[in-house]
């Protein structure tokens, strides 16, 4: 099934381009430090060297003389990791809430829907800022905060799928066979509800990467980790004189976010072909 899906994605030019960018970004994140070894925090050259000015620092240096390329490689790792893990958290919370509400209905559903609405009313980014600021900025709190503010759309989607699927014959059949609720939810309904969830998860990763960058930009990043948002935040004071310090990590963010969006749309076309006509 996965091979067929991959083939389908590669036939779609936009999705294939997205996949290519992501493979490249993953390669930079995983193997980049072989090309640019060393500590991204080390101040080992003249400050504010423009890209190409000195071959030792091909992408230049920042305000403190730290190598930009090393920082960008470190940022790729941080961004992708936080993006993936927080999207997993968000999917887990969203699927759990949506599945329970849609399966059991009644007061469980009513309670979970109120909770979902509450989390949708609160400005998400402001809540993430509050969580990270109060629980001390770190990779863990940022990941957790982004995951915890972004689950409502997934929950709503899973709930509506469950409301329909629970009435279907194969579910009734499994129930008649004496299957317990948990097995019914996990082995029967969930696999059928997953395709749209996968699409929303891809889009969530894109959004999470942007949110992480925004948090670091505001100074709420992990003080020990060099991320793209942190490089932009550190460079903003001199943005007029050395715009590349903010420019380069921003371009990296744009490409990765664009790639996940393209992948999400491609997955949507491949997994929900009846919607593709739109």
């Amino acid at each position, binding site marked *: 099934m996965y091979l067929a899906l991959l083939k389908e994605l590669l036939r779609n030019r936009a999705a294939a381009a997205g996949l290519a960018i992501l493979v490249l970004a993953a390669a930079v994140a995983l193997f980049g430090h072989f090309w640019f070894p060393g500590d991204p925090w080390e101040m080992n050259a003249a400050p504010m060297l423009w890209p190409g000015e000195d071959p030792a620092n091909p992408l230049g240096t920042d305000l403190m003389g730290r190598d930009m390329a090393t920082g960008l490689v470190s940022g790729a790792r941080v961004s992708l990791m936080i993006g993936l893990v927080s999207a997993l958290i968000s999917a887990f919370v969203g699927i759990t809430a949506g599945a329970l509400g849609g399966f059991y209905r009644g007061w469980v559903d009513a309670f979970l829907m*109120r909770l979902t609405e*509450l989390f*949708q*009313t*609160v*400005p*998400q*980014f*402001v*809540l993430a*800022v*509050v*969580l990270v*600021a*109060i*629980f*001390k900025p770190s990779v863990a709190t940022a990941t957790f905060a982004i995951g915890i503010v972004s689950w409502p759309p997934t929950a709503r989607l899973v709930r509506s799928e469950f409301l329909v699927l629970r009435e279907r014959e194969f579910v009734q059949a499994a129930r008649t066979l004496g299957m317990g609720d948990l097995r019914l939810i996990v082995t029967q309904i969930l696999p059928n509800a997953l395709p749209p969830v996968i699409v929303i998860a891809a889009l969530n990763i*894109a959004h999470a990467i*942007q949110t992480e*960058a*925004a948090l670091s*930009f*505001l*100074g*709420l990043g992990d003080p020990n980790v060099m991320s793209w948002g942190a490089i*932009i935040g550190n460079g*903003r004071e001199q*943005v*007029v004189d050395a*715009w590349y310090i*903010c*420019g380069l990590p*921003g371009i990296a*963010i*744009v*490409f990765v*976010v*664009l790639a996940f*969006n*393209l992948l999400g749309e491609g997955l949507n076309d491949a997994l929900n072909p009846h919607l593709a006509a*739109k």
Partner: protein
Amino acid sequence: MMLHTRIPAVLKFLRRRLWQVAPVVFGIALLNFLILQLAPGDVVDVLAGEAGAATPEYMARLRADFGLDRPVPTQLYHYLKHTVMLDLGFSFRQNMPVLQLILERLPATLLLMIAAMGVAVFSGLVLGVISARFAQRAADRVISIFVLVTYALPTFWLGLMAIVLFSAKLGWLPSSGMTDISVELTGLAHLRDVARHTLLPALTLATFYLAVYTKLIRTAMLEYFGADFIRTARAKGATETRITLFHALRNALLPLMTMLGLQLGSILSGAVLVESVFSWPGLGRLAFESILARDFNLLLGILLFSSVMVTVLNICVDVVYAFLDPRIEL
């Protein structure tokens, strides 16, 4: 038209909906309390201690106020009581009650949000209509690439780059603040000054939503081009322009309003970032200052207040929606 006959209905609707703000306040207050309970240190440490400027007497009074020596439900009761009476506490860093601070910054944020939404809705409509009218042709393709890219741009980064280009390199527009503080302007000149300062932040904030609305209008209009009432209009001999602008567009406005209502929270989040880039003196800038000062009581107050604002704005969107579509019951 029939607008005036709906006014009593609108008033009744407003009365009913305003009551729905109460559970939101309650929910957010509960959430804030939970965050404070889970935070390292006790509530008063977080609220006043981190701010570093509270006097020991005040902290002792706060501890007694919150009843920290009493069980958690009692504490919750006290916290909710304070919140419901809109007593959001005092900010030592800014030396002002939190509520007053927030209300002072509110107009700037509202101006920014409304300006940005105006730009986003208007340009989204124009681009969406063009791209639906010329679907699959060159104009449509250019617009869809534009949409794809703007959708991926981080707002705060776009703002920084806009400052570099339009303020520093070209010198067209000011890069920070809401007014020129070096000169005292009044009347029309003052308005012009504010407008010049609003332009860059509003455009920056608008970009993302512009992309969303363009896509939405395009999809909605393409759907309507096949609908019965459009065929009827065509059969009556209406021109394509008239059909596009009066028949399809009017109906495509409805999903736009729905989307706008859903996105109010996200727009406010975007404003926080844009304000901290452009030093815009609004709620977002206040949030940024409170992060820097570790003034968490202020930060929690902003969270509560902005959620209430989203709920109230949502009610306004519902009213506009009902005016656009007479079939909707309020």
